[in-house]
């Protein structure tokens, strides 16, 4: 039983600003479901006495001193920009942002 419904996928597509056709939604619902189920199988072996981790190596406090390093040149910054103007990235106006 997949944890991902078609409605979930529609919602996700909206959040990601991705337009998806009905066929694509059907296909992705199944595929994402398989992925979620596969990952869910981890919980079968997870034991409650081990805290969840987000990192495979038990490291803490990997910190950097507050010292300025090398920055990119403007040309490098904008190298992959689909569009730019006045040394800035040019993007479509999006109304619903923060």
């Amino acid at each position, binding site marked *: 039983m997949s944890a991902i419904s078609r409605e979930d996928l529609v919602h996700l597509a909206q959040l990601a600003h991705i337009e998806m056709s009905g066929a694509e939604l059907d296909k992705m619902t199944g595929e994402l479901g398989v992925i979620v189920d596969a990952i869910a199988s981890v919980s079968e072996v997870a034991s409650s006495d081990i805290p969840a981790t987000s990192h495979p190596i038990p490291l*803490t406090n990997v910190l950097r001193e507050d010292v300025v*390093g090398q920055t990119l040149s403007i040309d490098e910054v904008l190298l992959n920009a689909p569009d730019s103007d006045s040394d800035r990235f040019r993007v479509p*106006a999006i109304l619903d942002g923060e």
Partner: protein
Amino acid sequence: MSNYTDELVDFDVALEKYDPVLGFEVHVELNTKTKMFSDAPNAFGDAPNTNVTPVDLGLPGVLPVVNKTAVEYSILIGLALNCKIAERCGFARKNYFYPDTPKNFQTSQYDDPIAYDGWIDIELEDGEIFRVEIERAHMEEDAGKLTHMGGSTGRIQGADYSLVDYNRSGVPLVEIVTKTIEGAGKRAPELAKAYVAAIREIVKNLGVSDAKMERGNVRCDANVSLMLKGADKFGTRTETKNVNSLRAVEHAVHFEIERHAAVLDSGAKIVQETRHWHEDTRSTTSGRPKSDADDYRYFPEPDLVPIVTTAEWVEELRSRLPEPPADRRKRLKADWGYADKEFRDVVNAGVLDEIEATIAAGTSAAVARKWWMGEIARLAKAADKEIADLGVTPATIVELNSLITSKKINDKIARQVLEFVVDGEGTPNEIVEKRSLAVVNDDDALGKAVDEAMAAMPDVVEKIKGGKMQAIGALMGPVMKATRGQADAGRVREIVIEKLGL
């Protein structure tokens, strides 16, 4: 501009019926040398996209590394807000799609903020103390800056496209979130302003932020809801975003209370949404509907490992805390013996440091206040400058005052000297020397001037002899004229009395 059409209910009328409930999210930009997760400079006002590394652009394969100083500053803020410091905490990705972050997520903290469960006491204008509970203070990063182009207004509405500068992207932020604030009543707008002012003052005092609201170093999102008096359930709230001056915070809360009351009175419901504040019309307009927290699909940031704070580290940081601003004010007020209003005026004029230094250099509290709040404030106003920018230092006042107490100059001339100081002519001593302003109190010169005056006014002399001491005043004019206004009036009087053998 904002074409708001909202009905409003008069503020006082609204508060007869409803109790306002508040909550604030204040973002503080830290003034570290580098960004939160990259070693790009954290600087304001540089050319676009010059303070950018691959990490700030979210390029594939990059790894963020946490700035140790930013963590320490965050802990300092937590301690100053009387928070508990998490022994262990981590970062999380807050996912959203908008061009102000090229990564499509903001690195933030989710369910384990570095600081939590604190409080600060807010002093309202009349001295009443209102305690605000702090829910949490967490670390995150700022977003890039979008400039909306085309259209007519420069606002996002009607814009054709936007230009993005990622210099600000990744600048360390601490977001301070209050618990729900009840019981402020009609003082809600005042409390809102005082709260943000207190946060600004604290982070400035800690030295962890430049704390300039006009530059966005301190930004406030204000949550407002109303509940019927006596009700036990909160109303629906709105969140007015990025209210970026103290006055605007006060006005935004005032406006939202009036607007909410009108909506509720009409029988309609408040929509949970973000509101945009418009300084020009002093009103808010509808932003986007508030998304559920789930929409951000927070998950632990796999590229960063947890932060563990030892008691030793936290205590070392605690030992660095400066005296809290509120404590300092209390101490100074008691030391100086100023009345409530006198002290409030000094605080509002922003000359606490100057007066403290002036007093520390040996001037009395009353004299220090007289100068800073009197003549210096007047000159600042005339020059349309902040007092601190006038070029008058505590040393100036100390020097000026010692010239007065040693009777080299009188009060009136001291005020002239101060004007010359402001004009950049030098120190008071230099000016008195250069302009020959020292009061004439050498008895030979004064005696001669008095003789001349008495000779010219025999009738006045007779009156004085007859016991009318106030007639001495009539001699002052000629004496002052003869000494170019620099005679010591007290000494002149003594000489007259001596000469007449009275």
